[in-house]
């Protein structure tokens, strides 16, 4: 169970909190809570939505406890599988999206992270957030619209291709 959920919970926390240490703490606290509260799990519910519901609340707590930062620099976005030309535009897209996501309010960011990165179904997101599906769809639509605006407006720290990779890629 730990082996199975640690990667996805950590990824979710890292994308929500945008800080490696905070993500570690939040992921660890989430899984400790999950194990210690297994007796409270309602089998009617999908297990992953229960786990991510806890992850979400834990990430929110972590966010409140520490100052939330929207700075870049927490992840290595390099992908050496692409050609240099593709790499440039790929990196630029990744950086823009990363920055745009960072500027989204957490309530919008979480639905997009769950759908686009964790590949949750819409109904699973609704179950995770314990909200009606219509409400969740409304939130997702708003989130996507806002994200597109932020993506278009995103300013990169340096000219693309010169300093493309977000800090952390080894230098």
């Amino acid at each position, binding site marked *: 169970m730990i082996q199975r959920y640690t990667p996805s919970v950590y990824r979710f926390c890292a994308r929500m909190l945008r800080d490696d240490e905070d993500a570690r703490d939040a992921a660890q606290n989430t899984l400790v809570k999950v194990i210690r509260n297994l007796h409270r799990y309602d089998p009617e519910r999908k297990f992953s939505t229960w786990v991510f519901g806890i992850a979400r609340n834990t990430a929110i707590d972590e966010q409140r406890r520490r100052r939330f930062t929207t700075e870049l620099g927490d992840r290595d976005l390099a992908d050496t599988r692409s050609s240099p030309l593709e790499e440039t535009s790929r990196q630029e897209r990744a950086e823009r999206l990363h920055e745009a996501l960072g500027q989204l309010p957490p309530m919008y960011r979480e639905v997009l992270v769950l759908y686009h*990165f964790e590949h949750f*179904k*819409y109904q699973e997101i609704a179950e995770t957030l314990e909200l009606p599906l219509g409400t969740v769809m409304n939130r997702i639509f708003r989130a996507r619209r806002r994200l597109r605006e932020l993506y278009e407006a995103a300013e990169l720290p340096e000219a693309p291709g010169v300093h493309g990779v977000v800090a952390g890629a080894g230098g």
Partner: protein
Amino acid sequence: MHVHDDLLRRFVDGALDDEVAASVAIHLDSCSRCATRAATLEPLALAFAAVDDPIVPAELPHDILTAIHAPPVPVIEPTLGAELGLALALAAAAALLVVLTGDGPALMVDAAAAMGGASAAFGALSLDLVEPGAALLGLSLGAALLMALGATRDLLGRVFSPGRV
């Protein structure tokens, strides 16, 4: 029956009302073909695909297991014995300090020591550090200790300064 292009485009654009959007979402959840079509209409699809996953720390599962198996942090409740000890220690410390540093007349030193001990005990009491019974007992024991120290000091005084006369 799949979602037709126009409806799917409006879904991706967020142009549907909540109820219609919810019914399209239910279909997309169970139809990979329509879900794939919707994904290709998403303007930021390439950007989402470009973002790599955060690297999960290798030791994290181990750390989590350790945290799960760690014994719960014990809650320290002050016991009567601990409170008594604290009261006694405060009274004795104050008495000892005055006795060892005092070089005035013995009566004044003893009085100051008694006041020190008492104030320490009552200070502990007023700070809710000790229960009243424990404070009283601590005070009594402190006084007894004080008397013993006073006697020792008098004895030492007679032993080490007999020829000063």
